[in-house]
């Protein structure tokens, strides 16, 4: 018998996950298979090393930051629900009218605000809710490696923080971040469509 079952019953708490993340049954199944493929030793969870094994991710300059986003609060493991919750941020926006949604229900993970929050946390290394000049510099350094001098990078970081900073505290808060990107088509740029 195939050792990888194809039935959704194998996914722990499938219904709850579907409601929380908004993924369809088929997508959830695909992601579950993917989770199992990444979990080489069949531990039931993923560690940082499992994600670092993905070659195409390791060459991504922000690869380590992206991996970190799966392990909030200093955790060392991510189980399947945690895995899917992060990926849910990248689900394409739903077509439904916003007004039809229950205002009391928690915001869907793939809303514009949540996508922005996800991008924000890639910059905000210490998680204090602000991107300081130092953090901006560090992220920039990750993206360019050794190709750019310290002076050039510092001037870029200074300029960026200055442009976005409105209250003059020398750091970019989440609201300032969101404001500077208000014209951006976030939904399209931060969405990954899962094929049927």
């Amino acid at each position, binding site marked *: 018998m*195939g050792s990888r079952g*194809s039935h959704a019953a194998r996914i722990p708490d499938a219904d709850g996950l579907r409601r929380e993340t908004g993924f369809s049954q088929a997508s959830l199944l695909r992601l579950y298979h993917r989770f199992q493929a990444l979990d080489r030793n069949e531990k039931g969870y993923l560690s940082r090393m499992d994600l670092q094994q993905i*070659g195409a991710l390791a060459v991504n300059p922000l690869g380590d930051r*992206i991996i970190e986003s799966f392990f909030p609060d200093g955790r060392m493991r991510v189980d399947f629900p945690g895995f899917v919750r992060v990926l849910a941020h990248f689900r394409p926006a739903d077509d439904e009218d916003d007004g039809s949604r229950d205002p009391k229900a928690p915001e869907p993970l793939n809303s514009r605000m949540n996508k922005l929050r*996800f*991008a924000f946390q890639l910059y905000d290394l210490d998680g204090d809710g602000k991107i300081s000049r130092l953090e901006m510099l560090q992220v920039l350094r990750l993206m*360019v*490696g050794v*190709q750019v001098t310290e002076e050039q990078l510092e001037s870029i970081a200074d300029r960026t923080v200055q442009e976005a900073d409105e209250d003059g505290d020398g750091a970019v808060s989440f609201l300032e971040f969101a404001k500077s990107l208000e014209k951006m088509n976030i939904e399209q740029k931060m969405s990954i469509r*899962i094929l049927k």
Partner: protein
Amino acid sequence: MFLLLPFDSLIVSLLGISLTVLFTLLLVFIVVPAVFGVSFGIRKFYMNTLLKVFAWATLRMERGAKEKNHQLYKPYTNGIIAKDPTSLEEEIKEIRRSGSSKALDAAPEFELSDIFYFCRKGMETIMDDEVTKRFSAEELESWNLLSRTNYNFHYISLRLTVLWGLGVLVRYCFLLPLRIALAFTGISLLVAGTTVVGYLPNGRFKEFLSKHVHLMCYRICVRALTAIITYHDRKNRPRNGGICVANHTSPIDVIILASDGYYAMVGQVHGGLMGVIQRAMVKACPHVWFERSEVKDRHLVAKRLTEHVQDKSKLPILIFPEGTCINNTSVMMFKKGSFEIGATVYPVAIKYDPQFGDAFWNSSKYGMVTYLLRMMTSWAIVCSVWYLPPMTREAEEDAVQFANRVKSAIARKGGLVDLLWDGGLKREKVKDTFKEEQQKLYSKMIVGNHEDRSRS
């Protein structure tokens, strides 16, 4: 209290006779042709019958799925996510354009939104990357009546289940014992034959005998797996003093290639049964077996290979430069060691037909014995072997470029995807040089513009 049935002795004698008949048939129809290298065409006939049965089974499944409104599980070998094949530069420009309130001609240096590109690309690779999916077995569009390949087996119809049950019976109770007997015969003949030949003094006669002993035993092993192999372009078969290079899917590749040619093999010394076979083989023929510790010493490996290759009378060496088993949908990076030696390279492409049995050895999932049992309980191993024309390293090429050229040729011929990645990624992390490429590209975008502006 056992009641001895009156016709008990009759049953025993019937059993004895049928076993004798079975083994005589075995000998006549399988081993004798293997010894002489001829074929009765039984396997081809078997294969065609199976194809007809599979086609019928798939039709039934599709009909059944339509009746019940099921989604038949479609394979997603092209990836589970929709990807845009745009470059880093184009994407970042587009992101900036869509978000920028500045005038379009004032090219900005760096935007907060640039991070979206890397973020999304990173997430895409987490959801689906080219390499990880090469290390799990390929999914099929039709069902070949093996429950192990059917990921979406719903009960469709009684007839199909009965057929499947019949298949299980045939495979486990008839084919498996037959194949094990054949394999046993083949291996013991190989060990015995090569040991005997080893006692002869070196010379043309010894070589002649050794060649035929090897060929004969490999042919028996081929039949033990019910491998139906089609060789193409046999005129390009590797010659003495060259290196034969092929893509690697499973240890069976060795048997497939060695049953059509006489090669010197290269590999690690194993323990157990493999070790016995290896030690026996090397008595009759100059195979190159390395100790585990020596494999790490690349210079030693290269030296021994060069010595072997420089002697033009020596047999062609058989090497699998990927270094690990891939699932036969792609070809991964070739290790450059065998391409540095400077001998003529004879590339060979091997493509298995997954309909009859998946030959890929997922060494993290199955051990050798489990793997062989799985092979022997599949319907058959059907594959095509293409011998490509020989290639030599050009003057301006270095070993890596040469290796890539050979790899592309093999991938093209076998209809496999040509990948840049290292098969070793299965176990190790990727090199930093690739990351630097990305960083260089991005730096040009944010600093290159700066230089333009300062000039104007």
